[in-house]
């Protein structure tokens, strides 16, 4: 579980603008947690604070009962991984070298055979085995994102020894992906839940969010506006207020939560 307790994040000094204002959120262990909110609400900042990348101006983040600030950098990197929206590479490397970076926190000077094995199994999981020697920049956007997914999977590889708890953070990971890649990526992430891994994702597509999210947090104006563990609880009024769109639920879908249609 990731506990965000009373987190305030300011930019520009002690009296600066509050991007996050006293946010308390508990991301459940081994659940698919989703953060929603309009642009500029502070979603990504909340995610960056939760990953330990940004230090909050006030409040704390705990993984289990351990403050994230108490982790050593390499130890934290073996515990949690982050998949960003779009990662460019400054120089071309073959796909398998990019995935191997996920193992960097695990070895000193040379990768062990286990590291190599995890790299090939990660590539297999995302279906990129046949492109492992191809240069990363020559891949399509969707393929690049699959490689990044393989990299973060390798970083917190938990499929053999699930006794250690791992955390996967996704920061709008599907923005540049077509619908097939989107669902594939989120499915792979969801499969990790069975392997002692907690997933926290910032998503933009509300329908996708409601489909995958087991615990949904709505952020608005730097504050937690709403949270629920049942997507069907989300009301049209809430969506209209937070996202400033008209929302209608259409159909009921096989999963009983229906699909939303939005208009201005």
């Amino acid at each position: 579980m990731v506990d965000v307790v009373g987190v305030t994040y300011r930019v520009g000094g002690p009296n600066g603008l509050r991007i996050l204002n006293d946010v308390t959120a508990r991301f459940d262990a081994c659940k698919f947690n989703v953060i929603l909110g309009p642009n500029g609400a502070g979603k990504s900042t909340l995610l960056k604070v939760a990953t330990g990348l940004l230090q909050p101006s006030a409040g704390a983040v705990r993984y289990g009962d351990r403050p994230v600030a108490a982790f050593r950098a390499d130890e934290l990197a073996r515990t949690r991984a982050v998949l960003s929206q779009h990662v460019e590479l400054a120089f071309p490397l073959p796909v398998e070298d990019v995935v191997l970076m996920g193992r960097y926190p695990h070895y000193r000077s040379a990768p062990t055979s286990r590291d190599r094995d995890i790299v090939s199994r990660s590539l297999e999981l995302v279906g990129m085995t046949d492109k492992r020697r191809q240069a990363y920049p020559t891949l399509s956007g969707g393929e690049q994102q699959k490689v990044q997914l393989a990299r973060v999977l390798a970083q917190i590889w938990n499929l053999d020894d699930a006794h250690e708890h791992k955390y996967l953070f996704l920061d709008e990971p599907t923005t540049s992906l077509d619908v097939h890649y989107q669902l594939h990526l989120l499915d792979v992430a969801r499969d990790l839940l069975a392997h002692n891994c907690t997933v926290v994702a910032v998503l933009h597509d509300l329908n996708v969010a409601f489909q995958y999210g087991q615990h949904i947090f709505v952020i608005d104006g730097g504050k937690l506006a709403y949270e629920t563990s049942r997507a069907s609880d989300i009301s049209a009024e809430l969506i209209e207020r937070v996202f400033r769109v008209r929302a209608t639920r259409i159909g009921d879908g096989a999963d009983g939560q229906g699909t939303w249609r939005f208009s201005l």
Partner: protein
Amino acid sequence: MRRLSYRQTYVLLAALLAVLLVASAAIGAFSFTPAEMVRHLGVAAGWLPATSADALSRNVFLELRLPRVLLAGLTGAVLGVSGTLMQGLFRNPIVEPGLAGTSAGAALGAALVFVFGGSTALSFTAPLGSIAVPVLAFVGAFAATMLVYRLSTSFGKVNVFTLLLAGIAVNAVCGAGTGFLSYVARDPQARNITFWNLGTFTTADWHGVMLVAVFFALCFAWSMRYGKALNALMLGEDEAAFLGVDSRKLIFRLLVVNTIMVSVATAMVGVIAFVGLIVPHVLRILKSSDYTFLLPGSALLGALLMELVDIVARIIIPPAELPIGIITAVIGAPIFLWILLRQQPQRGTGASIDSGAGAGFYG
């Protein structure tokens, strides 16, 4: 070369380097046969009795040729590794110590000691003795590099156009300072402005070889620990942080390491531009952009290239010698322009090339 493993590539480069070292030791105004070289080395090591017949030849070989060959190789290794480090830190294939002001700052610092070393203005350097030159070279190089780095970085991203412009400005200021110092200098050696601006190995001695060797070995060993971190930095600073790399610490430490070895080498041989640009570039095309490979690879290829350049410098206009920097510029400037032009289409709206600059390039 793509098919070779990293280790096989090192062996190949090392073998070529060994051949060039022997060739470089043999060729010149005084040429030596392999048998002569072995005999001189044997005498120097005390295994063979000294004969007065070839005392002159031995002296030339041991006191002039050998230090020169070794200093050239070491300097090449320093500049190659430095180019690799700087390109990794700036995430751009166009950076190298000559362009980023590091070498020019070092030359200015060193020239200060050469010209004013004995005067009261710089009397604080007296206790430093013979290392005053590299120490002040380091101060100058560090100040110049940090200035260029700060000017070209905003919000953690490097703007390569600002970087090049800042490099031009800092190089101009340092060059003017060094030029002024050589103009007012009394010592004829310090007056030799081509020494500072174009680099030469004619003044090589064992003291210089030892100094560069020790600092190169330490700095190279230290930087080898950061191969993985430099790779991770290719993803950007945030992604590197998620992999446990503290980019700020990394950048500061590697700039210090880089500045130390470049300033020591520059204090001995002057400014030699473009080697740091060419060496990683060639290795990326031939083999890989993986820094765990590029660091040792660029030490070997840097040494190799510098031996080659030094041989050319000695034989192209006998009996005179060409300054090293002329040859490296002739080879390096076109490569520099080529890289710059290849970067154009990726510039987007024109403001900045940040990460991704070297991507679509080698492959």
